[in-house]
C-alpha cells in the first residue's frame, strides 16, 4: 500500500508546529465563518487568499482545508441553536436539531453534530486516501439521466417528510418548486418569474429561502404569540450525551458517510441532497419514528456525518481530476493556479508532498475541530438562556446580515422578509416548512438534469433511462411505490418473523 507510506510522510508535513498552527487557525476561522449565515467557506477562502500569498503553498492549503471543514461544521451550530442554517448543507440539521435545543437538549444536539462531523469526515477522508482514483473514474461515468433518476428517487422520498397532512405537504412542496423556478432558464437563457429584476436572474439562494422560512418565519410566529404564551427562557439541560443518546446515534454516524461520500465525489452531487436522503433514511430506520419532527437525535447525527463526508468526497474530484464540484473547491482550484500549481490528474505525482500534507492535515483538522467543539457545546447551548424577545431579535439580526452577505444586494433582504412572511402564513395554516425548502433544492436541479438528458438524446424520451444506473434506480423507485400493493397481495405470514422484531412496522392499510 503505497498510499499509506505517503500518508505517513504527509503527517510529517502536517505535524510541523507551523502547519499545525495554520490548521488550528483555519479551523477556528472556519467555525466562526460557518456560524454567520450567508458567509460561506467559499467567500472566506476567497477573502483570505491575499493574506496567504506570503505563505508557501502547503501551509496555505492546510489552512484552507481547515477553513473548509470548520465552515461546514460551524453552519450546523446556528442551525441547531437558532434555526438559522449557516450553510445549505446544514439546512437538514435544523429540522431535528432546533426542536432538540428548544427542549433543553441543545448541547446534546451540538455534541451529536460534532461527533457526527468527526466520524463522517474521518471515514470520508480515509475513503479519499484509499479510493480516490477509483471513485474519480466512476464519478465521471455518471451522466444527466442518472442524476435525474436520483432526483426522482429523492422526490419519492419527500413524501415521507410531508407531515401528517399530505395535501398540506404537497402544497408546501409546490411553494418551494415555484420559488425554485425564479431566475434564468439555464438551457435557453429566458427569464422566468423575475419581473424584469436583474437581481433575481440568478434565482434565489437556498440559504435565503431556508433562513427566511425557518428563522424569520419562526421569529414572526413567536412574536405574534408572545403575549399569549408565558415567555420563559428555554431550559438548558444536562451538558453531555447520555448512554441512550449514544446508543441511538452511533449507527447514523456510520451510515452518513456511506451516503455522503459518493455524492460529494459526483461532479453534480453537492451536500444538500445527500444530507436530505440521510435524514429520510434515518427516519425510516429509526425505532423512534414518532419523535422525528420533535427533536430526534438520529436526525442530527446522520445528516451531519453525511455533510462532512461529502466535503471529503468533493476533494476527490478536485485533487484527482481538477474538477471543482462546490464553490469552495472552485476557489481552492483558483488558489492552486495562483501558486502556479496545475490541479488535475497529474497533481498526485507532481506535487505529492503538498497533496499528502493536505490530506494528513484534514485528519489533524478534524481532530482539532472535535477537541474545540465538544467542550464548547454546553457553552453555546447557554445562548438559549437569553430571554425570548432578545433571542429572536438576535436571530432576525443574524438572518438579515446573512442574507445580505450572500451577494451584498438589498434585494436579497426584501426577498428574505417576503419569504419570512410566507413562512409565517405557512405556520398559521399548518403547512410544514421543510417540503418547501426541499422543493427549492431539488426542483431546479431535477429540471436541469432532465432537460440536459433530453438535450443529449435529441429530445428522445428514452434518453432519460438509457444507462444501467438510471434503470437500477428507477427499479428501486418502482419497488418503493409498489411495495404496499405487493405486501397486500402476499399471503400474510403467521405472527412475527422469528429472528428479530420487524424494525419497520408497516402502517395498517385499510
Amino acid at each position, binding site marked *: 500500500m503505497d498510499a499509506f507510506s505517503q500518508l505517513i510522510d504527509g503527517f510529517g508535513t502536517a505535524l510541523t508546529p507551523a502547519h499545525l498552527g495554520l490548521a488550528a487557525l483555519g479551523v477556528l476561522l472556519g467555525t*466562526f*465563518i460557518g456560524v*454567520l449565515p450567508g*458567509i460561506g467557506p*467559499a*467567500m*472566506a*477562502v*476567497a*477573502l483570505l487568499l491575499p493574506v496567504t*500569498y506570503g505563505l508557501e503553498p502547503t501551509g496555505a492549503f492546510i489552512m484552507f482545508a481547515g477553513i473548509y471543514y470548520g465552515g461546514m461544521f460551524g453552519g450546523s451550530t446556528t442551525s441547531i441553536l437558532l434555526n438559522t442554517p449557516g450553510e445549505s448543507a446544514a439546512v437538514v440539521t435544523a429540522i431535528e436539531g432546533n426542536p432538540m435545543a428548544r427542549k433543553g437538549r441543545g448541547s446534546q444536539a451540538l455534541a451529536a453534530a460534532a461527533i457526527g462531523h468527526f466520524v463522517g469526515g474521518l471515514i470520508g477522508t480515509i475513503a479519499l486516501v484509499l479510493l480516490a482514483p477509483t471513485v474519480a473514474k466512476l464519478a*465521471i*461515468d*455518471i*451522466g*444527466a439521466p442518472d442524476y435525474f433518476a436520483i432526483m426522482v428517487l429523492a422526490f419519492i422520498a419527500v413524501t415521507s417528510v410531508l407531515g401528517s397532512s399530505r395535501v398540506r405537504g404537497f402544497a408546501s412542496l409546490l411553494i418551494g418548486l415555484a420559488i425554485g423556478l425564479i431566475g*434564468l432558464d*439555464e*438551457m*435557453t*437563457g429566458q*427569464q422566468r418569474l423575475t419581473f*424584469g429584476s*436583474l*437581481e433575481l*436572474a*440568478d434565482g434565489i439562494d437556498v440559504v435565503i429561502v431556508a433562513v427566511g422560512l425557518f428563522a424569520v418565519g419562526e421569529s414572526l410566529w413567536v412574536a405574534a404569540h408572545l403575549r399569549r404564551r408565558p415567555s420563559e427562557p428555554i431550559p438548558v439541560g444536562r451538558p453531555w450525551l447520555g448512554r441512550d443518546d449514544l446508543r441511538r446515534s452511533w449507527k447514523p454516524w456510520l451510515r452518513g458517510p456511506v451516503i455522503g461520500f459518493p455524492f460529494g465525489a459526483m*461532479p453534480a452531487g453537492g451536500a444538500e441532497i445527500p444530507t436530505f436522503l440521510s435524514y429520510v433514511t434515518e427516519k425510516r430506520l429509526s425505532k423512534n419514528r414518532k419523535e422525528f419532527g420533535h427533536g430526534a437525535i438520529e436526525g442530527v447525527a446522520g445528516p451531519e456525518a453525511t455533510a462532512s463526508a461529502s466535503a471529503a468526497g468533493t476533494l476527490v*474530484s478536485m485533487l484527482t*481530476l*481538477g*474538477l*471543482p*464540484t462546490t*464553490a469552495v473547491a*472552485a*476557489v481552492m*482550484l*483558483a488558489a492552486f*493556479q*495562483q501558486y*502556479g500549481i*496545475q*490541479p*488535475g*490528474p*497529474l*497533481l498526485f505525482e507532481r506535487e505529492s508532498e503538498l497533496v499528502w500534507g493536505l490530506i494528513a492535515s484534514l485528519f489533524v483538522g478534524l481532530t482539532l475541530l472535535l477537541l474545540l467543539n465538544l467542550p464548547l457545546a454546553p457553552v453555546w447551548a447557554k445562548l438559549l438562556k*437569553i430571554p425570548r424577545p432578545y433571542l429572536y431579535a438576535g436571530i432576525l439580526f443574524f438572518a438579515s*446580515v446573512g442574507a*445580505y*452577505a450572500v*451577494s*451584498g*444586494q438589498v434585494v436579497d433582504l426584501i426577498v428574505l422578509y417576503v419569504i419570512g412572511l410566507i413562512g409565517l402564513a405557512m405556520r398559521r395554516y399548518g403547512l410544514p416548512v421543510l417540503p418547501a425548502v426541499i422543493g427549492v433544492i431539488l426542483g431546479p436541479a431535477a429540471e436541469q438534469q432532465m432537460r*440536459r438528458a433530453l*438535450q*443529449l438524446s*435529441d*429530445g428522445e424520451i428514452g434518453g432519460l433511462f438509457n444507462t444501467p444506473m438510471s434503470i437500477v434506480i428507477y427499479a428501486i423507485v418502482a419497488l418503493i411505490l409498489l411495495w404496499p400493493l405487493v405486501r397486500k397481495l402476499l399471503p400474510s405470514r403467521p405472527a412475527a418473523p422469528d429472528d428479530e422484531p420487524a424494525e419497520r412496522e408497516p402502517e395498517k392499510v385499510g
Partner: protein
Amino acid sequence: MRTKAIVAAVVALAAVLVIPPLISSGDDGVRGLRVLVPNAPGGGYDTTARTAAKSMEEAGLGRNIEVFNLPGAGGTVGLGRLVNERGNDRLVMSMGLGVVGAVYTNHAPSSLQDTTPIARLISEPDIVVVPRNSPYRDIRALIEAWKANPGAVQVGGGSAPGGPDHLAPMLMAKAVGLAPRDVRYVPYDGGGELLASVLGGKIAFGVSGISEYRDQIQSGDLRVLAVTSGQRLAGLDAPTLKESGVDVDFTNWRGVVAPPGISDSERDRLISVFTKLHDSPQWAEALRRNGWGDSFVTGARFGEFLSAENSRVAGVLKELGLA
C-alpha cells in the same frame, strides 16, 4: 444580570468587528482603487482581478487595492452598479466577453457602451476537445459528422447561453452552414462540470477555455482537435479552425472598464496605471503562470473593439432568438 450585559456587549462588539470586514461592501472615501468583480469568487473575472491587484501591489503601483464581488445575472448586476457610479474615478470593473452576451440574454438596461473603456488585458482562446476514446480523430471528421446529423452530435460548454463557450460553437456552426438553432448545445455549470462529461463521453465534444484543461491534455485524457483563435498556441499540437477550413476566429478576452462620466484626465490616469501594470515583470509572470495570452489594448481602441464584439455577439444571439 451583569454577566448577561457583559456577554451582550462582547457579542455586539465581536459582531461589529468581525462582520464588516467579511462583507465586502463599504463605500466611497476608501483611498486607493476598488475593483468590482461581477461574478462569484473563483470565477474568471475574479481570478483576473485578484491577479492584477496582486501584481500591482507587488510592482509598487498601488496600495490597498480592494477587490470585491457583486455577482449576478452573468455580470450585468455588477455592470448596473458600475454605470450608476457615474464619475467615480476610484472604481473599475473586471469584465470580459461573457458580459457582452449577458447584457442581451438578461435584457439588462445598461450595456458596456455606457462605460468608459480602460484596457483589454488578456485573451484566452477556446479549444475544441474530445475524450481520448472519441471516434473523431481530427476536426474535419468531427465537422463532417456534425454536418451530417447535428442532432446526434452534442456540444457541451461551460457557460450559459450568451457566454463564450456558447458563442464559439454557434459561430462554428454558422461557418460550416448549420443553423444555430439546430445545434444541440448543453450548458454546464462551469468548465469543471463540463470536463466531467467530456471525460465521461456524455457529449460528442466540448468547447471551453484552455487553462482549466492543460493537465488533462498533457496526461492524454483529452484530445484537442482545434483552437478557436487565429494563431496556433505554443506548446499545443492542434490546428486553428481557420486552417481547417472553418472560418472562425474567436478568442475569449477579459479587461477592465470604468464608470461613465469620468474626466479625460482621470481616464488617462487609470489607463496609465494599467499600462504600467502591463509593463511590469510581475504581470508577465502572472500571464505565464495562468497561461493567458497578452492582448493589451487601451482606451479608444478598446472601445472600438467592444462595439465590434457587441455587434458580432448580437448577430448570433438574434438568430437564436435571444436578443
